[in-house]
């Protein structure tokens, strides 16, 4: 095995492989920053140019670009509340408030470092987990995925500050929006009103662009000035503060990375769910959960570490079974086939060096992205200080181009504008936009897995599958925990004030 680890690294130490990785990373960063375009598009566009070169160089170019898009998507989420891709959604919850408070550099630094650490830890966890990945994949199924999605829903309480009812209303609207389009179970159009465009549902990235970025620009236009808080005149922290934050919260990074690896390993769970799940566990394990949503640095670190680690996990279905775990892995699978390598379990015996070469690419491309990221962060952090007169038209143009680029439909631009209005109204009347998005992300996952669980395992599947039942109890426990803490804190306050309010 050690030989394969060294062999994998040696494959990458050629001028061509290093150059290709650098090109891939720079290209990936640029693609990632544009909303609507993600790693899959980046890889798909690169694929035709990748043939005819060294195996390692080809993989370095493709995987390097894919990895770099992750941090690229985080940048716009943190700075402008424009998530570059669905998986970077959770970053805006605390990343943007940090920017408003003058801590953009710190947030970007923490984000880049967390993604790097997540990538490295993810690759290590994966290398250690290789022997158990296959049995675990075969052990967990739709009922367990359903429990994971339900666990994700518990985060709604975090964003329901002030009124739990308003929080639930927002989440329900999100669920209803997710139901627009072709029902994945019965192939029946829902809420489409005869529109062909709506058959494919509301695009999640487009809804996010509208809900957050367009709404925020509307708010900025009304308010004037810049997106920074009025009392912020200069950056209050540096990129290095962010790096230190990520290292200081090493335990959170480790937990989030492990979560990311397994979410990547399990087919049927998207990376966007991963970011939200990471955020949920950061909130639920925090001693001060009330800081989340207002600029807690842990809210940036956890999702980025998870998404960073997720990529390594995503390799596993491809390596363990020869089944592409997602679209990006389908592209890698194509690359393998053209190299004459049959993906699947035999890769672990016949081409273990190639498996480790990919793990090295994940680590090195993450390192390269972080180095470039940390270098450009101080300059990027100046952007939010721009005046509304420049900022609003600039960001709105990027948003609408991004909305169009998502599927190439002009209707998506209209959808982004409509969601901008919805977001603005929700913000004004204190309905959590985050809850709406969480409802949207988790609705389909819950619907699909609930249907499959009921069909395959019967109405009482919850009680006939011990793992599902254990997970269900865990969901109830973690949901009740914040309420119990609040109740205990209330009692302590009451005791210390002698029962006076």
């Amino acid at each position, binding site marked *: 095995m050690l030989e394969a680890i060294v062999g994998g690294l040696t494959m990458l130490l050629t001028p061509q492989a290093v150059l290709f990785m650098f090109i891939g990373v720079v290209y990936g960063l640029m693609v990632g920053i544009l909303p609507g375009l993600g790693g899959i598009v980046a*890889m798909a566009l690169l694929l035709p140019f990748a043939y005819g070169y060294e195996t390692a160089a080809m993989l370095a170019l493709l995987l390097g670009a894919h990895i770099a898009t992750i941090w690229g998507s985080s940048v716009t989420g943190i700075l402008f509340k424009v998530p570059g891709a669905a998986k970077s959604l959770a970053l805006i919850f605390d990343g943007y408030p940090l920017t408003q408070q003058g801590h953009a550099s710190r947030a970007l630094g923490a984000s880049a470092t967390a993604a790097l650490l997540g990538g490295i830890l993810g690759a290590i966890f994966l290398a250690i987990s290789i022997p158990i990945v296959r049995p675990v994949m075969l052990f967990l199924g739709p009922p367990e995925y359903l429990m994971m999605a339900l666990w994700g829903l518990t985060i709604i309480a975090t964003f329901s500050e002030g009124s739990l009812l308003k929080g639930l209303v927002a989440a329900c609207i999100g669920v209803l929006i997710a139901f627009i389009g072709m029902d994945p179970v019965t192939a029946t159009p829902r809420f489409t009103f005869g529109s062909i465009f709506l058959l494919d549902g509301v695009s999640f990235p487009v809804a996010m662009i509208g809900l957050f970025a367009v709404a925020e620009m509307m708010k900025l236009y009304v308010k004037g000035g810049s997106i920074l808080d009025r009392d912020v005149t200069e950056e209050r922290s540096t990129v290095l503060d962010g790096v230190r934050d990520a290292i200081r919260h090493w335990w959170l990074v480790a937990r989030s990375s492990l979560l990311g690896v397994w979410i990547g390993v399990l087919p049927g769970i998207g990376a966007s769910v991963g970011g939200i799940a990471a955020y949920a566990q950061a909130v639920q394990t925090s001693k001060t959960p009330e800081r989340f949503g207002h600029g807690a640095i842990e809210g940036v670190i956890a999702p980025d570490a998870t998404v960073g680690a997720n990529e390594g996990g995503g390799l596993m279905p491809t390596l363990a079974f020869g089944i592409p775990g997602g679209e990006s892995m389908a592209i890698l699978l*194509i690359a393998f086939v053209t190299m004459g390598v049959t*993906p699947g379990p035999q890769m672990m015996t016949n081409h273990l060096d190639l498996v480790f070469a990919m793990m090295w690419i994940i680590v090195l491309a993450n390192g390269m992205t972080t180095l470039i990221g940390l270098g450009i962060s101080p300059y990027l952090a100046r952007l939010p200080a721009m005046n509304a007169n420049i900022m609003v038209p600039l960001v709105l143009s990027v948003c609408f181009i991004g909305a169009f680029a998502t599927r190439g439909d002009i209707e998506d631009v209209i959808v982004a504008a409509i969601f901008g209005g919805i977001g603005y109204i929700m913000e004004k009347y204190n309905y959590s936009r985050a809850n709406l998005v969480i409802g949207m992300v988790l609705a389909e996952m819950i619907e699909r897995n609930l249907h499959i669980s009921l069909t395959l395992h019967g109405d009482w599947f919850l009680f006939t599958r011990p793992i599902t039942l254990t997970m269900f109890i865990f969901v109830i426990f973690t949901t009740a925990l914040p309420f119990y803490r609040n109740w205990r804190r209330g009692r302590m306050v009451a005791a210390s004030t002698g029962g006076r309010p």
Partner: protein
Amino acid sequence: MKTTWKTALAGALALVLSAVMVPFGGEATAGMYDGKVITLIVPNSPSGRMTRYARLYAPYIAKYTGAKEVRVVNKKGGGGVKGTNFLWVQEPDGMTIAFTSVPTLILAQLSGSEAVQFDATKFVYLGRAATEPRVMVVGGNNEIKSIQDVMSLNRPFINPSQGTDEDFYTLAILADAIGFDLKIVTGYEGQADTGVAIIKGDGDGLLTSWAYTIPMVEAGDMRPILTIWEERHTDYPDVPTALEVVKAEKKDAVEAIINMLAMHRGFFGPPNMDPTATAELRKAISMASADPELQAKGKEQGLILLPSDGETEQKRIVQITKASQGLKPVLKAALDSIK
């Protein structure tokens, strides 16, 4: 002197003109596409195999039509229906054509899908790039070892499915024609999800392309039990074809579906497309398929080519339409079974 001056001017003009014309010269003859942009709609994912075939062909279609560019535009959604609906309403001037899985469109139409706004028989077919056999596989550890085991099962054959794609409809037709009880469980997300479901035994089997199953069959995770093709596959000569096991009175249905699957990755244009454009595009696609450079690139990229010309595909669609009317009740029943 005057004549000399005029001759010199004409000579200079000719020289300039010929210099300007040289870059536009080449293999294409002067035609309606010279210097124009052809839009090639692919109603599938930008990262999928369909788009890769389209991108492989695009520069060669441009080369043989003389077009400035053949621009690949992905209009993904509704299992290919959305982009095809878009093509249906385009001007039939030959400037917008499409490339996708033709059987998916025909089956979606036959099933009475509410989303379909087109009539697949009215499109103008321009040629096929490739087709490959479909295969029915079961999990490696499943009690089912052959298609005979499926036929004698005393319970339904469980098929994890992503939804109403061509494999969904094809399996429903096969179940009716061969005679086994089928339970389709929809809601799975992607091939990885359905593949793992049958490997671990949540479902019995599925229908997919031969190329997709190779790694899993080699690893013993999946077992092929039926080929949906005219003849047995050379790699697995022991696996029977659907035509060998079908009930005699249902043979037409299986032949229709095999014919349909044979149209697989095809180019087509809107109804009543301009005859000159049709002729030029059919010729260009045939020439592109025969181009050794395209063939070498296809091989390099793992894209198997099995071309067929536009006229043949157009005739095939007429036969399919006639033969497939009897399939409608089966397809409708399959759709009803998941409601």
